[in-house]
């Protein structure tokens, strides 16, 4: 997702070889880590609110759903179909 499209949108970016690519992959991993970490923090907050009973459960579940779906999108799990050989 982000890596390939990111590379394609770079203006005048020459192909600099495997080290450069490895660095870009590393950055992508780091960006994902920050994003995942923020989502995890959000989920923990929701849990705390749930245990404190401060918020309506439906609202909490909706917020939780949004975070989970965002997490899955980051992981590239969204819409993924890996077909097995077994019908």
């Amino acid at each position: 997702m982000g890596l390939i499209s990111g590379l394609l949108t770079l203006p005048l970016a020459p192909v600099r070889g495997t080290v450069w690519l490895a660095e870009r992959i590393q950055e992508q991993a780091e960006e994902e880590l920050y994003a995942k970490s923020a989502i995890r923090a959000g989920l923990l907050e929701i849990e705390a609110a749930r245990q404190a009973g401060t918020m309506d459960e439906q609202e909490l579940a909706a917020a939780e759903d949004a975070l989970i779906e965002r997490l899955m999108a980051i992981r590239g799990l969204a819409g993924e179909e890996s077909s097995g050989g077994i019908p």
Partner: protein
Amino acid sequence: MASTGDASVYVYGVLPASDQARVSVGGVEGAEVRTIEHGGLAALVSSVEADALAAARELRAHWRVLEEASKATTVLPVRFGTVMDSDDAVRERLLEPNSAGLTELLDQLAGRVQLNLKGDYDEERLLSAVVREVPTVATLRERVQKLSDSAGYYDRIRLGELVAAEVARRREEDTALALARLEPLSVATDVGQPHSPDAAFNLAFLVESGGVDAFSDAVGKLRGELGERVTLRYVGPLPPYSFAETDLSAGAEAWA
């Protein structure tokens, strides 16, 4: 156990047929959770109607089903989102061909639980310690602070590199420390990827049920040893997600 003919089947996990786990909580799509048996093994499943599932809601269902089933017995968790074509497919494609391997895996997991330990650095303390203890960092930091943003650009990068390397080194040290303290009290260990940018370590342990208290005491001691540098989050018992990771799509080689 009602056979549902050709409906698709969502698979949660595998357990010994003799340890029937009663799951009262609804599964995916709120469907009733049941088992499909074959050769001493049972797959924990529910029927699926729709072509696509709402990921977040079903993730929660998946989790809750496994949590409840695990109260009764050791369940081998299956990867989230696994759907097979029918009850027969579960019997003929999952349980039958992998009978020996699954039985062995269940034997290895029987009477054991997963415990997770995540450590997180207090960023401020960590960085303060790095500046205090690494002279080159302290010196470079001084220089950078005196320069403008543009003049100091490359120095800042260099500073950041040094700090990043130091953090990585400490992360390795602290991971090794945690493993040294806890690995001896566990059956198996899984070292995970950092869960956050401030992560010190992300560890999963397979521990005998009877050994959880002793393991927990060791975690308490480790907490004291790490002090305020690292915040620990100690969670469990969990179904053995991290120790069920055999890839059945590889066929027979997976059991080598």
